[in-house]
């Protein structure tokens, strides 16, 4: 169902420190949110509500909203938390504005690296009945997914390697999981993302320019039991895609977007997503790779931000993709686009998917 209000991204900020700088998480979030407010030329008094998304296991703090409320401006204000995924915070923020009860929402997500092992923290997401005793973390689930894809698509391992190579080198990093070779993934880094959405009336009243208008949005979830799934496919993404494309009127996805920001924890996941989104079907992967379609500056303008492969703030990569896609449309990024697509995935073997389409025209 289309949104009953036009909603746009009016400000944002991304913080991914190149090196640990000794800042506390709260200090990082405070500076981030102040930066996003400045970008939108607003103050916290213009914000009607706040949605935050974080992972308690990564944070080392239970109930993220309790620790973060002071940093992000939530004291004595409306603030809620979506611990499921960072892009779900965006969904909730947009839906709140769409209700007509809010004109603006601040959306914030973060992903620290203070836990001794991200892998062990992720393992806690597994149920304690059947999966907790397995060495199951995100990267292991991506490796499982790679093995299934390799069994379904002839030469998938080589295709993934060629896809990765075509995007240029990002240095050495061993994922320590089979089929995910050196340089196919990036180590977790600390990062945080904030953005502000507003409805069309608010935007008009404030004379705001360079808006990334939300044209379509879809999100869906698959079963948590990996053994119930065909890991080479993504039916939840199909559902999210249909919702987003339907709202935005997308019928030719391969040619519809000037910029793509797509989940890329490893090349296998990106390939599956590109296939389901109809941007590069399986039969076209080798041809597109050979043509340099995924290379920096390539025809598909794939992840011009560099994506998670360049810097991987694990939990907030989805919201970062949304901000990067919006920035392409707002003219705030190196790559200017009239239409941009953001895809977010999270959970084991991409259990959750979100698709978000931004355009320059209201």
């Amino acid at each position, binding site marked *: 169902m289309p949104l009953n209000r036009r909603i746009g991204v009016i400000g944002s900020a991304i913080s991914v420190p190149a090196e640990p700088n000794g800042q506390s998480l709260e200090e990082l979030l405070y500076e981030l949110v102040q930066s996003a407010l400045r970008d939108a030329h607003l103050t916290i008094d213009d914000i009607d509500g706040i949605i935050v998304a974080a992972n308690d296991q990564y944070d*080392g703090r239970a109930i993220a909203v309790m620790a973060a409320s002071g940093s992000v401006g939530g004291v004595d204000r409306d603030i809620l938390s979506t611990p499921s995924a960072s892009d779900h915070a965006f969904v909730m923020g947009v839906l709140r504005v769409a209700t007509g009860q809010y004109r603006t929402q601040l959306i914030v997500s973060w992903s620290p690296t*203070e*836990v*001794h092992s991200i892998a062990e923290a992720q393992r806690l997401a597994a149920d304690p009945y059947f999966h907790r005793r397995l060495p199951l973390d995100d990267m292991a689930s991506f490796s499982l997914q790679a093995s299934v894809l390799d069994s379904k698509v002839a030469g998938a391992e080589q295709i993934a390697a060629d896809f990765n190579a075509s995007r240029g080198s990002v240095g050495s990093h061993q994922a320590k999981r089979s089929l995910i070779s050196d340089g196919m993934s990036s180590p977790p880094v600390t990062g945080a993302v904030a953005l502000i959405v507003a409805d069309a009336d608010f935007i008009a009243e404030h004379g705001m320019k360079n808006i990334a208008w939300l044209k379509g949005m879809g999100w869906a979830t698959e079963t948590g039991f990996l053994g119930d799934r065909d890991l080479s496919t993504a039916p939840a993404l199909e559902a999210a895609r249909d919702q987003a494309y339907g709202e935005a009127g997308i019928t030719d996805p391969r040619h519809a977007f000037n910029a793509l920001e797509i989940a890329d924890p490893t090349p296998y996941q990106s390939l599956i997503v590109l296939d389901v989104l109809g941007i590069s079907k399986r039969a076209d992967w080798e041809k597109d790779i050979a043509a340099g379609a995924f290379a920096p500056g390539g025809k598909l303008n794939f992840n011009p931000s560099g994506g998670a492969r360049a810097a991987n703030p694990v939990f907030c990569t989805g919201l970062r993709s949304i901000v990067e896609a919006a920035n392409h449309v707002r003219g705030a990024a190196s790559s200017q686009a009239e239409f941009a697509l953001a895809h977010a995935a999270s959970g084991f073997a991409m259990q959750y998917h979100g698709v978000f389409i931004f355009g320059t025209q209201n």
Partner: protein
Amino acid sequence: MELMTRNEAWNITYRHALGETASYFYTEIRDNKKIFGRRCATSGRVLVPPRAFSDQTLKPTTDWVEVGPGGVIEAFTMVYEDFQGLPPPPYAFGYVMLDGADTALGGFFRGVDLSNSAEAAKKLAVGTRVTTKFAEKRIGDVLDFWFEIAG
């Protein structure tokens, strides 16, 4: 049939960055037995424990202010539950508005017999003056200091 259970232990450790403000606070406690707060220039309030920004005004705090060691109990509780990593219960803790501060600092109360909670509660009544004591060996931690009834 047998209904089974599973024992699970979460063995996860963290190395949290404290940031400049909390680091200065704990360094002063460890090295000089002094407690500092940060002043919010907008509101004038002295925040203890110190923060780099005020979550009320959302403005950066501007200067350090030494507070205490005396203060007044704002809230207290006696805890008879066992917590991992803490001495055996019972213990008393609460919040003290140190002299010169505008927000209260959490810490342990010592020197009060907790075997009779009703009697202990009278001694720890809200409004009672206390003073801050420091451990002989300090590492830069909340356990480096505690409060005792002034007198």
